[in-house]
């Protein structure tokens, strides 16, 4: 019994590390002129990984369905930009042309997390 519990526990630790740290969610692609919509609901951004073309301005539309105050703002810390998100109202977010690389976006506390991947 003890061995089984230990093995299960270690397996669970491995699963936690793999799921939260090592594997990533599928990326959504922002293409063309139409802005990609990011839904803010239930403590997450959906999609939370967005591929955007490098060297071109980026347009995203955030739709906030989450009434928690944490969801009230989206912060692009590396770009020194932040946007207020009003409940149930689409907020257009315009970002400058990005160099290749990852640009995280978070709520003000850094709990809701997503990343823009410019490539």
């Amino acid at each position: 019994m003890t061995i089984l519990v230990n093995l299960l526990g270690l397996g669970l630790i491995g699963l936690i590390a793999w799921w939260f740290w090592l594997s990533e969610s599928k990326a959504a692609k922002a293409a063309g002129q139409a802005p990609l919509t990011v839904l803010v609901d239930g403590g997450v951004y959906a999609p939370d990984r967005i591929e955007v073309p490098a060297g071109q301005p980026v347009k995203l539309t955030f739709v906030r369905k989450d009434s928690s105050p944490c969801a009230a703002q989206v912060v692009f810390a590396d770009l020194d930009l932040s946007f207020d998100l009003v409940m149930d109202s689409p907020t257009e977010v315009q970002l400058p042309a990005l160099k290749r690389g990852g640009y995280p976006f978070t709520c003000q506390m850094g709990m809701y997390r997503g990343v823009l991947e410019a490539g």
Partner: protein
Amino acid sequence: MARAIRLSIDGMHCAGCVSKVEAALTAVPGVTQATVNLAERSAMVEGDANVSVLIEAVRATGREAVEIKNAADETQKEAAEMAHYRRLLLQAAAAALVGLPMFTAGMLDALPDLDSATGQVIWLALGIITLGVMMFSGRQFYVGAFKGLIHHSATMDTLIAMGTGTAWLYSMVISIWPHAVPEVGRHVYFEAALIIIALINLGQALEMRARGKTSEAIKRLIGLQPKTARVLREGEEIDISIEAVGLDETVRVRPGEKIPVDGVLLEGHSHVDESMLTGEPMPVAKQKGDEVVGGTINTSGTFLYKATRIGADTVLAQIITMVRQAQSSKPRIGRLVDRVAGVFVPAVLIIAVLTFIAWFDFGPEPRISFALVTTMTVLIIACPCALGLATPMSIMVGVGKAAEYGILIRNGEALERAGRLTTIVLDKTGTLTLGKPQVTNVIACEGSEDEILRLAASLEAGSEHPLAAAVLTAATEKELQPAAAEKFAALTGRGISGAVEGKPLLLGNRKLMQERGIKLKADVETQLGRLAESARTPMLLASDEILLGIVAVADPVREDSHAAVARLHALGMKVVMLTGDNRHTAEAVAKELGVDGVIAEVMPQDKGSRIAELQAQGEVVGMVGDGINDAAALARADVGFAIGAGTDAAMESADVTLMRSSPTGVASAIEISRATMVNIRQNLFGAFVYNTLGIPVAAGILYPFIGLLLNPIIAGAAMAMSSVTVVSNANRLRLFKVGDSR
């Protein structure tokens, strides 16, 4: 008055576009009128329509639209937050209403025994009721945890959902199969799950309340904007909503009213109280041609002005945007914490599993109960929120506090760096001095002083030199009538020459007099020496090789420059004056103000390299200038302070903009920066200590030594209060007063 929505429209190039967009907007149900302004690339929509539908309607025409936001958004935001606050309280109350009686009954040993069939049925019923209440009161945690999980993200919701979910699941297993665990381990934790949820909801509601206070500064700024404006349309004065004011429209402002948008005064004169934006206590006189800023208060006369900046372009709107941006930006210390917060929750999950294994392997009987309670307590006590809130809450209050003093801080990093400055370099002209030369002395060698001034003014009337304006102003003040000058010539670097009323005249420096062979007597030399010592620039007036007199001009030191330098010294700063002026004048001003060093005779383009030299000596340098001539130095410095300018260019380039034309704001900015950074460190220290001590104690590290195990309910209370403590500590900053107002 109908609700007005303003949209900024992208992709509109011709009058044809205007009619298409207008038609699309008018077709939206609820729209009573839609007017598109091609020049502004904007649309004003009146009626009762949904913004997203309007935006979609514009998109359908192949163009992009964004709402031009205004104070109404803030009202909507506040209403949403209030609804959320009430719901949290209701959820807390519901969980407490069921959880507390169960807890009390347990303490009084009044709950049924699990061994009897009746007891089991009662427990199962309580379990189902608990599940219902958990779903009502803690729905957001479970939904959040699930959504997070499928997005590979673990948040505070994950911890709460796992902690309370485990408690409920274990309790149900015990209720259904009581004999699955030894008798001593047959504890049911339904009440713990409910009370934890109640406490966390209550904590979040309290935190929301406290958070609301942290953004009071921005609310105050938004509150400055009036809701309506009185405009002149077709000869009639009508009241319209502020969003409906167009560019170049004529606006009427009466005494006591707020100025709705930025503009230029056309008719009338008044005094305007600009203290809410600049911190400048005295109302400023305004007359035809002067600029007025939206949000300031007209104190006395009635006037008409032309709207030159509206909507998001007004100074007030830009200030609000800048303060908002700064409030949500992070200093380096905050970004480091973000990285920790990003890995925090999965790490706690792993610690919780290890805790379970440790208790299961080495704990006393009933091992399963100990393992379960400690695991649950670890999950509940860990509080990533306290870590996440530590920096942004303090930045929010600190940046807002600065804005109250008319100090606009660009971002969190600038705020952080301002606290580490060791040297402040102040530009002389326009920063320490008024930047407007004035005549300070008129000395007559021949004739009267008025005659000397009149002749000098007559000659200067044709000159564009800054000193000429000072001479002409002084003559006007004395009601002297300058005569027409003939044969005027500017003698570069030396002065001017000409003839007034047939008399040949020279006005210039000592070099000019020497060139023309005009000898200066000993007493004149003494006078010139004295003038130079007191930072005054003498202009010598001569005719026919005879010195007629001296007109001395100086750029007066600002009244509060002494106080500014003294406050900077009190903060331990080295104060250096930087100027393009000659060393003599610069040193005289430096001596008067008591600064520690003078860098004189520097060309504007070399100011940046002088800053770099100071940095090379190990100094962390703050440069204070007017944002135009000092652009390079401001950019080169660790923190650039643009003084007395609400101008777009200065606000864009500087790290800190001082709205009030006073160098005292520099000391205030440094004090606020230091206080904010201390507050952030206190918050981070508290949050780290809480988690680094709380988690091991919850895991039962003290049990082998002193037999201490934390009750999961206590862990829930501690977790809820840790966030409240961080936000409350940040709120203390609101009481902070800078040196000159203490």
